């Protein structure tokens, strides 16, 4: 039992300081990562079929899977060493420098807040679609999703991720049940893959369609890197984070493959590429009311789990910025009873609500993906610098990823392809976001950085880097 529990969670855990509570294990890390991502199987990935056909959706499933496997491996190594809230932000601060760290933190906050907004809109739209009642709008369901989950996050990380574990597991099991219910080993009875995906329509736009499909292929795994935000709250970061992240990645690769196989075998690519509910539709197409209702509930649970994890992660990134005075230190307050970054949670709550009420789903998703890919590009550079400044043997690593520098090179190249794909579909948003990050960087460099306590921000007890 921790000291915090012994004192009834009402007093400080380390002397006079109020810190985040260290109560999580590998299962919570898995629940955080897979919880954020799994909604992508229920909607999002299928738009890649619209860009390049059903086969393109499968090709990007595996190639983007490679991208994210690289992300998971790289992240596991660095985070098992830099175990601090803020995840990639803390990594960037120690390895690259403050300006990169500031940008990375903003990538994180944008990626997760926009994903939370997308999840809430999806949940509201799904309920409205199911109800089919005239005059019913999604606003009340969006508000309830965001506020209830913010309240859960406010009240404590352990309950938040326990809930995430349960609802993520139910949503995941529903995919497995659907897969085995349609006799996947037999073609022709329920599944008709050989009729729906033929040499003539497999790649309707050729290989450029495969490139374009990368934009939405990201949705198979978007957010798995969010596991690192829990670094300061897991009992054993060096063990739990690599275990939880890699287990999550394996789980998602299996879910992605099953999802594609069932959906591509039940729906023509023209429909698959435009529906908002591929798995729910698959449930309907089996003709089983039980499966239909199961997949409807699973879609809601996946959206809830994702939004829940996103609130957790965005708040920790924002909190970390405040703690280092990159933003006003007011944001770095920790609730003395619940041990959560309560002001950051509350600050981001109305922002998420505002975007959810005014933004459309496609815009929110695109902003989330763009910020995510910017972050992955940083990670490929980050690991190269990390290995160069602190080679193996100079500091203790909880996990060492294999084949370096191959995963970093693969990650960087795939990020470039994804940027090109996004430019094809959402070029103006890509340029707008780049300009935004450039301007905010100028603000940070010329104004905000003067408030930062420069010596205090580097907290890891590492030796001097090679070459310094």
């Amino acid at each position, binding site marked *: *039992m*921790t*000291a915090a529990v012994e004192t009834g969670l009402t007093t*400080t855990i*380390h002397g*006079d*300081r*109020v*810190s*985040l509570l*260290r109560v999580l294990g590998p299962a919570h890390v898995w629940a955080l990562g897979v919880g954020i991502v799994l909604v992508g199987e229920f909607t999002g990935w299928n738009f890649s079929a619209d860009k390049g056909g059903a086969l393109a959706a499968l090709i990007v499933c595996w190639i983007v899977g490679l991208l994210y496997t690289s992300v998971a491996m790289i992240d596991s190594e660095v985070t098992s060493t830099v*175990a*601090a*809230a*803020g995840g990639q932000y*803390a990594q960037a601060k120690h390895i690259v420098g403050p300006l990169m760290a500031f940008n990375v933190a903003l990538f994180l906050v944008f990626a997760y807040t926009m994903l939370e907004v997308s999840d809430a809109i999806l949940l509201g739209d799904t*309920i409205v679609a199911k*109800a089919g*009642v005239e*005059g*019913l*709008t999604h606003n*009340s*369901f969006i*508000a*309830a999703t965001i*506020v*209830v989950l*913010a*309240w859960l996050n*406010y009240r404590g990380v352990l309950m938040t991720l326990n809930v995430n574990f349960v609802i993520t597991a139910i949503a995941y099991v529903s995919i497995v049940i659907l897969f085995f219910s349609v006799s996947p080993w037999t073609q022709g009875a329920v599944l008709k893959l050989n009729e729906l995906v033929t040499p003539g329509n497999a790649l309707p736009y050729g290989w450029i369609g495969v490139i374009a499909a990368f934009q939405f292929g990201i949705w198979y795994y978007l957010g798995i890197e969010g596991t690192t935000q829990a670094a*300061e709250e897991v*009992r054993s*970061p060096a063990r739990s984070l690599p275990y939880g992240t890699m287990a999550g990645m394996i789980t998602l690769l299996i879910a992605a493959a099953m999802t594609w196989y069932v959906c591509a075998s039940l729906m023509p690519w023209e429909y698959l590429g435009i529906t908002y509910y591929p798995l729910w539709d698959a449930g309907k197409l089996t003709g089983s009311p039980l499966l239909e209702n199961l997949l409807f509930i699973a879609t809601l649970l996946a959206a809830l789990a994702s939004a829940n994890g996103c609130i957790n992660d965005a708040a920790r990134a924002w909190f*970390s910025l*405040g*703690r*280092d005075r990159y933003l006003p*230190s*007011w944001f*770095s*307050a*920790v*609730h*003395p*009873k619940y041990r959560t970054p*309560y*002001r950051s949670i*509350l600050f981001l*709550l109305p922002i998420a609500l505002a975007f959810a009420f005014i933004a459309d789903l496609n815009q929110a998703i695109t902003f989330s993906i763009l910020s995510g890919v910017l972050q992955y590009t940083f990670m490929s550079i980050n690991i190269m610098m990390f290995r160069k400044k602190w080679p193996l043997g100079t500091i203790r690593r909880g996990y060492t990823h294999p084949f370096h520098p191959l995963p970093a090179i693969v990650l960087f190249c795939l990020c470039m392809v994804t940027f090109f794909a996004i430019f094809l579909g959402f070029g103006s948003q890509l340029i707008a976001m780049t300009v935004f990050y450039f301007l905010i960087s100028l603000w940070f460099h010329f104004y905000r950085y003067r408030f930062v306590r420069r010596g205090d*921000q580097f*907290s*890891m*007890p590492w030796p001097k880097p090679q070459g310094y």
Partner: protein
Amino acid sequence: MWMGLSYVCWGISVVLALWMLYDWFKVDTTYSEDVLTSSREGELEAVSEKHRI
């Protein structure tokens, strides 16, 4: 039924939002700013091994 559920959602949202605002006010007026913002990065890691899990 669905319209009723919609009103329930609005009600829950308002109640929980007000509760969070109340708790925020209570905490901020009970504890000093120095205590609330006393968390330090890396500190938890440095002392964690001293705790029984």
